[in-house]
């Protein structure tokens, strides 16, 4: 059996009216809705004109395919690079380096040979040192 207080509580809870929403709720909701409405409208326009957009893109792609061999923009770019002063400077530097390495001789050997020999020997020394250290470390562990 329910207490009289509980009956009163039930009735009061049932009779409670809705709370009043704060006045700023409606403007906040409508601001978000307006934004979304414009987005939906733009999306609907995009969807409506989708075939036209697709066809335009296809037409543009075909036009590019036809125009590229005619105007050869790649050739123009390569021509520009070839005539650029930087490439000329780089070519001169490489030429000077090649001349020095082949013509300059030390102990009757061209400098290029000596540089290659020293680089090769250094590499071999490094490899030998590393493998010796590894071998010694393994031997010590065992």
């Amino acid at each position, binding site marked *: 059996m329910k207490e009289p*207080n*509980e009956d009163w*509580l*039930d009735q*009061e*809870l*049932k*009779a*409670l*009216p*809705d*709370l*009043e*929403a*704060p006045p*700023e*709720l*409606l403007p*906040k*909701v*409508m601001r*978000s*809705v*307006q934004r*979304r*409405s*414009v987005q*939906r*409208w733009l999306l*609907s*326009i995009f969807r*409506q*004109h989708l075939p*036209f*957009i697709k066809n335009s893109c296809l037409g543009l792609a075909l036009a590019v395919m036809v125009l590229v061999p005619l105007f050869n923009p790649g050739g123009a770019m390569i021509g520009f690079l070839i005539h650029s002063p930087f490439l000329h400077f780089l070519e001169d530097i490489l030429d000077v380096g090649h001349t020095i390495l082949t013509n300059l001789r030390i102990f009757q050997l061209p400098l290029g040979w000596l540089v290659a020999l020293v680089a090769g020997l250094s590499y071999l020394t490094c490899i030998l040192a590393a493998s010796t250290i590894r071998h010694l470390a393994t031997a010590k562990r065992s």
Partner: protein
Amino acid sequence: MVNAAPLPLIGIDDQDASGLDARMAEVQEFETFVRNYQNMVFSVAARIVGNPIDAQDIAQEVFIKAYQRFDELKDSGTIGGWLKTVATNLSINHLNRYRARWRFFSEEETEFEIPTFTPPTDDRRELLELAIQKLPDAQRVPLVLFHFQDLSYDEIADKLGISLAKVKTDIHRGRDSLRKILVKTS
């Protein structure tokens, strides 16, 4: 003489402009809809989360969801029920985000200390509303779902992921606390 047909150009033509008008009309219709239901949605959220600021954010989210489905909802006869369900679910999700706090209240077995506060009004209904807000989450949420959403004990247990016995105990305790708060403040 041959009349040249206008080329379809991208831009805002008459059709698009009328589409925009239709959107604006829909927005106005939606505004009326929000006006009609804002108190109900806000009440559901405020009573569950017990905090008017969070309730306002939840109500806003509910109406944005409603706007996304407004085409189907406006002609449906169950729109009020749909709004209540979404508001309830979003409010419970909001409480679940603070899962640790929710669990803490849900599993605690200690007696809830009846708060003392000076009622700003003599109106019994307003007092009752304040008393509901003062209840701890674990008592308030099942009590609100039971009394205001007319959910059964099973549905409440399912929604909150707690046992049936726990739901009954929490509602009983909630009513008890509510009575004590009202006796203490009156």
